[in-house]
C-alpha cells in the first residue's frame, strides 16, 4: 500500500520502520528470542555438521566396540552408543533430516492446502466447495500420525517417503484453516467491489483474498514446524523413516530404549534433542504470532 509518489528514500525508511516495529513486537516476549536463537544454532550446526560435530565419521556405519556404551564424559560429551559412536555427533547429523522433514513437508503442504481452502471458501455453496471440503473431511477422519503411519507402511522406508506420508495427512489442516478465512472474507466490501468491476475469479481469489490470509497461514507454519518434525521422529521411532546407519532422532530413541536403564544416555539425549527442537519452534511460533497480530 505504498503511495506511488513516495520517493525511494521514504520507502526504504518505511521498511526499516516496519522491521523495527515487528522486532519490537517479537522480542517483547524474551522466550521468543530464546527460541529464535536456539533455532538459528540448530540450523547452523546442521548445515555445518561436518565441522561442528566432534566425530563426523560416527554419523554413518562406523563401529568401534572398544568405546561402546561409554557414559557421558570429556571425550564423548553425551556418551556413545552400542556401536561406540558418539551420540552428540549423531544428534547433530540427525538435525539435518529433521529440518529437511519440517521444511520439505511445509513447502509442499502449505500451497496445496491454501489453494484448496481458497477455492472452496470463495465458491461456498457450489458443488466444487462440497467436493473439496468433503474430501478434506475424509482425510481429517484419522489422526495425522495414524494416516502417516499407514501411508509409510506401504512404501519403502526412506526420508522422502516419510515426508510424503506426513504431507498426505497434513494438507487438510491448512485447507480447513484457509477455507474458514476465505469463506468469511468473500463477504468483505473489497471483494464485492472487485466482483462488481468484473475482476476474474483468479484475481479475486489470489490478489484480494489470499493476501489477507497470509498472516495466520504463516503463524501456523511456524508453529507446525515443530509438530511436523515430531511426527517425523515418531515415524522413525517405529522404524518407518530414515533407515540406519543414517542417524534419525526417533530411531536413536527407540534403539536406545532397549538398553534402559543401564545405558540411559543412548535414548535420553536424542529424546531431549527432540524436545528442544520442538520447544524452540513453538517459542518462535508464539513470537511470530505476537509479531503478526494486529493488536497493539
Amino acid at each position, binding site marked *: 500500500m505504498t503511495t506511488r509518489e513516495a520517493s525511494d528514500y521514504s520507502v526504504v525508511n518505511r521498511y526499516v520502520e516496519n522491521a523495527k516495529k515487528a522486532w519490537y513486537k517479537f522480542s517483547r516476549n524474551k522466550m521468543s528470542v530464546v527460541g529464535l536463537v536456539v533455532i538459528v544454532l540448530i540450523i547452523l550446526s546442521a548445515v555445518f555438521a561436518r565441522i561442528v560435530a566432534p566425530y563426523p565419521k560416527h554419523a554413518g556405519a562406523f563401529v568401534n566396540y572398544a568405546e561402546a556404551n561409554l557414559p557421558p564424559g570429556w571425550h564423548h560429551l553425551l556418551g556413545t552408543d552400542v556401536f561406540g559412536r558418539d551420540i552428540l555427533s549423531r544428534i547433530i547429523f540427525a538435525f539435518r533430516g529433521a529440518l529437511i522433514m519440517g521444511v520439505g513437508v511445509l513447502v509442499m503442504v502449505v500451497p496445496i492446502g491454501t489453494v484448496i481452502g481458497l477455492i472452496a471458501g470463495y465458491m461456498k455453496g457450489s458443488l466444487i466447495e462440497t467436493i473439496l471440503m468433503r474430501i478434506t*473431511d475424509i482425510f481429517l*477422519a484419522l489422526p495425522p500420525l495414524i494416516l502417516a503411519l499407514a501411508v509409510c507402511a506401504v512404501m519403502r522406508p526412506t526420508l522422502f517417503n516419510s515426508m510424503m506420508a506426513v504431507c498426505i495427512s497434513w494438507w487438510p489442516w491448512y485447507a480447513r484453516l484457509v477455507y474458514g478465512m476465505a469463506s468469511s472474507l468473500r463477504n468483505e466490501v473489497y471483494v464485492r467491489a472487485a466482483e462488481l468491476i468484473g475482476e476474474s475469479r483468479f484475481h479475486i481469489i489470489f490478489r484480494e483474498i489470499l493476501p489477507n490470509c497470509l498472516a495466520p497461514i504463516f503463524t501456523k507454519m511456524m508453529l507446525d514446524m515443530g509438530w511436523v518434525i515430531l511426527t517425523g521422529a515418531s515415524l522413525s521411532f517405529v522404524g518407518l523413516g530414515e533407515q540406519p546407519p543414517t542417524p534419525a532422532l526417533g530411531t536413536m530413541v527407540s534403539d536406545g530404549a532397549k538398553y534402559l536403564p543401564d545405558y540411559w544416555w543412548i535414548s535420553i539425549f536424542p529424546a531431549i534433542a527432540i524436545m528442544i527442537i520442538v520447544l524452540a519452534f513453538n517459542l518462535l511460533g508464539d513470537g511470530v504470532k505476537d509479531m503478526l497480530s494486529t493488536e497493539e
Partner: protein
Amino acid sequence: MGINLLKRIGLSIFVLFGLSILIFIISRVVPGDPARLALGPRAPEWAVQKLRQEMHLDKPLYTQYVLWLDGLVHGDLGRSLVTRRSVTTDIKEFLPATLEIVILSAIVLVFGGIFLGIISAKFTNSWLDGLIRVISYLGIVSPAFVWAIIFVLIFGYNIPIFPTMGRLSPGVVPPPMITGMYTVDSLITGNFGTFVDAFKHLVLPAIALAMGGMAQAARITRSSMLDNMGKDYIAAEKAYGIPEGLIFVKYLLKPSLIPTVSVASLDIAALFGNAFLVELIFNYPGFSRYGISAMLNKDLNAIAGVIMVLGVIFVTINIIIDFIVAYLDPRIGLAGR
C-alpha cells in the same frame, strides 16, 4: 436436536465410506505384488497364484474394492498374513487392551487438565501457577514416547512402584474373556487381586499418553477462565451477591470448559495414534503394537482393518464431543458444524 443428530451421523457415514476408499487405495498402491510380498521371494509360483486368487488380486480393482467393502460391512476383514488368523479375531483380541489404556488416559487427560487449569487460574501468578505453566509447556512439546521412556526410567528402576512391562505380572492368571479388558473382566468375576495388578500395569502408559493433551487442556482452561473472569456478567453476579462458589462453578467454569472440550476431543482421538508408540516402550500387547507389526511386515489386510477401526472410533468420538459442546454452549448448533 434429532434432525441435527441424523445429519451429523449421515455425514459421518459418508466420511467413513470415503475413508474406506482411501484405505483401500493405500493398501493397494504397494509397489510389488502383495501375494508375493506375503509369501516371501522363495515361495513357489503356484502358491502365489493361489493366494492371489484368495485375495481377489486377479480381479479388476473396483471388484476388489466391492468385495473388500462387502467383507467390511459383514465384519470380515480378511486374513492376517502374519498371524494367519482372521483380522477380525485379532482385532477383537488386541483392541480391548488398548481401549483400557486410552480410556484411562482420556480420564486423566480431561480431569487432570481441567483440574490443573482451575488451580492455575485460581492462583494466577503464584508459584503454583508458574510451576503448572512450565510443566504444561514441557508436556506439550514432549512426545508421548519420550514421557514413556522417562517414566520407565524413574518408576521402573529408581522408585519401582509401578510395573513397566506387559498387561499382568508373571504368574497372574488372566481373567476369563468377557469384554477383553482385564480390569473390567476381573471386577466382573470378582477377582480383586487381578484387578489391582492389571490396573497397576495401566497407570504409567496411560499417564505417559495423557501428558501432552493434559498440558494442552490445562493451558486452555486457564486462559479461558482468565478471559471470562474479567467479563461484565461475572461482576454483575458478584454485585447481586451470588455466592462465590456458585459463580465459580456455574457461571465461570461451565462456559470456560467449551474450548477445552473441543480441543480435548482432538487430543483424545490422537491418543490412539500415540498409543502406537507408547505400547512399544511398555511392551504392551495391544492393538497399536499389532498395528505396528502389521505395518512393518506389510500385512495389508491387517493394516486396512486396523486403520478402518481407528477411523470409526475417531469419527464416533468427534460426534460425541460435538454433542457435549452443544450441551455446554446452547448457542452452538450442530447444523453448522
